[in-house]
């Protein structure tokens, strides 16, 4: 339990760093770090397959996409980046305090989990779940990928021409 809490705190810190850092590239790396930490949490919660997906897709594929997109963008100068960071701090300094306060409030309130949990099902084979039980979600994900490809082609192709 304590290890999980430590990982979750590290995860939040990585997420804050991702948002606050002045370099887009570092933000991309921060996001990958968040995914890696999340992978550990998921693995520790006995979902190795979900952990593999998280690691390969979010920490791997998405990071590659981010880094390649960032390399195409024009970076800010050091002076501009520092200015942006200052503005960001001035605007959002209270957010970490709110998060901590919310955590304290949730700890103090005795939340009643007044629920009748269903009996755990026998663990199903993930392959069967994906192909037999949820083909519509699979099709949906293929369509989302197609949409993303279209977005990139439509929005970036003409820019490259120019």
């Amino acid at each position, binding site marked *: 339990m304590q290890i999980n809490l430590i990982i979750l705190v590290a995860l939040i810190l990585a997420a804050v760093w991702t948002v606050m850092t002045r370099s887009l590239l570092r933000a991309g790396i921060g996001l990958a770090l968040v995914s890696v930490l999340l992978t550990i949490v998921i693995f520790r919660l006995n979902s190795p397959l979900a952990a593999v997906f998280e690691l390969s897709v979010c920490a791997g594929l998405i990071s590659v996409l981010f880094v390649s997109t960032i390399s195409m963008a024009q970076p800010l100068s050091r002076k501009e980046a520092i200015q942006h960071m200052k503005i960001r701090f001035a605007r959002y300094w209270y957010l970490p305090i709110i998060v901590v306060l919310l955590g304290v409030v949730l700890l103090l309130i005795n939340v009643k989990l*007044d629920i009748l949990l269903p009996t755990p099902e026998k663990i199903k084979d993930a392959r069967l779940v994906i192909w*037999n039980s949820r083909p*519509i979600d699979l099709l949906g994900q293929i*369509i989302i990928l*197609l*949409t993303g490809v*279209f977005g990139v082609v*439509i929005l970036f192709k003409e820019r490259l021409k120019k």
Partner: protein
Amino acid sequence: MHQLLILLPFLSIIILNLPFKSILRKLAFLFGVSLCLFQIAFVFFPALRFSSAQFELLSSFLKFNLLVDNLTLVMLLCIGIVSFVSLLAAKRLIPEERALFNFTNVLIIALAGLNGIVMVKDIFSLYVFLEITAVASFILIVLHKDIFAFEGAFKYLILSTIATTLLLSSIALFLLVSGSTEYSAISAGLKNSPNSHIMMLAIGLFLSGVFIKAGLMPFHGWVPDTYSSAPAPVSIFLAGIVTKTVGVYTLIRIVTTVTGFTAPIRNVLLFVGAFTIVIGAFAALGQNDFKRMLSYSSISQVGYIVLGLGSGTMLGVAGAAFHLFNHAIFKSLLFVNAASVESATGLRDMNKMSGLSARMPLTGVSSCLASLSTAGVPPLSGFWSKLVIIVALWMSGRRVYALIAVLASVVTLAYFLSMQRRVFFGKLGVEFANIKEQGFALGFAAVLLSLIVIGVGLFFPFVLNSFILPVGNIFGG
């Protein structure tokens, strides 16, 4: 063969992007129109909806778990009509072949997403199709790479992401309690743990997410920017059907099928609905930009749908679905008119226009019809749906809300009459002496939608018994 409504758009996209693009590029528009017309036929001809022997093999291979009831059919019809009209507008307003091809492709993807939303019976599948529609919508909004459109799309993107996060958190909690993500399983799980804090949190998170997606007050900030900055055919599509399906349909479906009408949910819906109606109407009253005014009007009309739903009765649910249909039609018509006016004059500021009816009579008359229908003037379609909602509120003892709905209609009439006076009535401005109607496609779209507005109004008893009252049967089922 309900699967076809998701599979055909998907296959169309693949076919349209095969090699020989130069030929396929010319056919893209026809593909899009055919899909929309097939969808409309699908609703009206039950024979198309049932599996024939040829499709049994496909059905056994693709085990899609779909739900098709009267509400689904009403939504499929709305989606078909509005997508068709949006394509017609694009044909006229997007002259370049490549840009029209891109638009058609993304619209077809959005069509698959919308059809998925209205047919799935699983809350996680719902999320998947919500995302398809959202991503396609972002691309559509920035299609012309206009700086204001980027701003609108960015706001939509950020708020939509927040909404998605809320929905996903809620789905996780629903899964925790019910052990499944199917609507029926969640509904059973809720019945087993009716007063749990976790379930209240899950319902609260879900409603907040859906309120953002529907653009209800106070989560409406993205709507005016997005609708007014998007290219005209996209505005028609977004205002006519996207937010109505993504936000409003989802709300109706989840409340009627999953959570049920508990007292807190009814009170939240009634309050948010009434608040949205009033604030949206007064905000519309102060606008000078044609499309921004229509955007605020759209927010206000969504309030009526939510108010009808909040009555918690079969009649209220039926009224909400009826107003959803009517709103899709008359708001699309108004955005078609705005597109014609903007294309002819190059303006959106209503104070700079006058007397356009003299040169654009069809646009003027159809705009007048749509405005009167929105304001609830008999015998047009909007009158009947508002009447059903108000009667439902009255019968459920929510008389104050019924009164608010009636009074807000007066404000609606006021801002639409102000729009008609400034844009279409009066003396024709000298600079508009040479303008004319904007081609067959937009004219045809305006006539088609006007006929629906009049037809639904005149044949209300038939529409009520055949399509509207059966929608109420989903309540509790």
